[in-house]
């Protein structure tokens, strides 16, 4: 009886190990052996709305930047609302405002309709520049085809897309800090009217962004 139980337990453990191994292979690898495969798989994931699939095709640095940009949105919106609330408390209730509807990541990736690799150029460091013809969905039924230059490189043994994000990209913490200072100034009565406070905030943001 005891021997049978041990055999059954061993079988279950073995099956579990095999399943876990299979799962780990599929999770760890986006499975792109060539730049073309990477572009095709990114496109497939995008059209399926598979956010994780798209993110796993990015370099670690790019993935981190994309995830952070979406995670930062809510605190930024909150600080803007705090500023508006302070204006309303201090200078009277402002009029209703219909805000811009922003896409989430799933909607953003869903805008990639089709892709076609046009050419490739390999650099000395092993990264590859890929020219891709892409059809992007616009407003309503509109779409446009653009030719983009993408940079892909090998990371952890597979090809991944490196996004060309600006090194001095807008920093949510810096923006939030500027809005928080302006909000405090409004509450402390630094400004004589709503308009002056808004212009002051805008110039603080211009400064925080390097004023271009």
């Amino acid at each position, binding site marked *: 009886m005891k021997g049978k139980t041990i055999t059954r337990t061993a079988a279950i453990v073995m099956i579990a190990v095999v399943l876990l191994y299979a799962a780990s292979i599929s999770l760890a690898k986006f499975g792109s052996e060539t730049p073309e495969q990477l572009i095709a798989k990114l496109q497939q994931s995008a059209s399926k709305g598979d956010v994780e699939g798209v993110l796993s095709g990015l370099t670690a640095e790019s993935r981190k930047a994309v995830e952070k940009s979406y995670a930062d949105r809510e605190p930024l919106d909150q600080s803007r609302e705090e500023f508006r609330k302070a204006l309303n408390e201090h200078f009277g209730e402002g009029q209703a405002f219909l805000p811009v509807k922003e896409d989430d990541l799933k909607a953003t990736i869903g805008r990639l309709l089709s892709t076609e690799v046009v050419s490739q150029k390999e650099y000395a460091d092993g990264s590859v520049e890929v020219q891709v013809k892409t059809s992007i969905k616009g407003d309503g039924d509109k779409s446009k085809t653009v030719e983009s230059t993408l940079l892909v490189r090998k990371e952890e043994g597979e090809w991944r897309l490196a996004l060309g994000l600006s090194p001095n990209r807008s920093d949510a913490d810096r923006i939030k800090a500027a809005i928080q200072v302006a909000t405090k100034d409004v509450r402390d009565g630094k400004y004589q009217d709503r308009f002056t406070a*808004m212009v002051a905030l805008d110039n603080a943001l211009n400064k925080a962004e390097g004023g271009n």
Partner: protein
Amino acid sequence: MKTIIKKTNAILIGLILFALFMSGCDKCSPVALKTMDLKPTATFTGSSGTSGSEGWCFSQGNPPPSSFSAGPGQVMVGFDNFFKPGADPFPCNDLRDTVFRGNVAFDVSQFDSVASADLLFDTQNSIERSNGETTGSSPPKSFATVFGTATSTSTGKLPFDNEASLPGGQSIDVGVSSQVRSWVDKSHPNHGFVIAGPTDLVDSSNPPENNQAKVSWYGNFKLRIVYNPAQNPHAPQ
């Protein structure tokens, strides 16, 4: 005989004068028109545009939110753009392009017909941003260039028709008789006026790539209606 002719002439002249008096009565007697200023039943600002990066960039980016909002009784009209270029060879540009349009609604249900209507309002503030600096103008500039009748108020895009050009200046007065008549006779749904410009809505497939802004704040809205009380029994007599 002479007396009869004289009497006949006198009657004839009398009849002619009576006929003339009666026929001219409608046109000659003054119709007492009334003027009434209506206050808005609703005012709000719609914003629309595009934000983040495009295509393969996937990223939302963190463009700073627009600093501007409308105060009590105000609407905001204009645009506010943000642009920061990405890095070569595959630049992911961060951008936020916002267009503001104002909506001002009036209740004209008490009227059955109007002689004329004018929309009056003031330009109360304005800003411009260029070369990284935002400045307010004194006197304020009116950047709105057109107005029309709203066809929907369910989105920040505030679509409109019956477009007409809007004069500039601090005190704005535009004739809106045909628009108000279309609300009164119900040939057009009354969603109010839309004030827009100086740019059209953002084309997300070709968004502006600059850091400029031009915004005007408008307030003190009045719809001045001239009407005949006899034809408008529900309006103040």
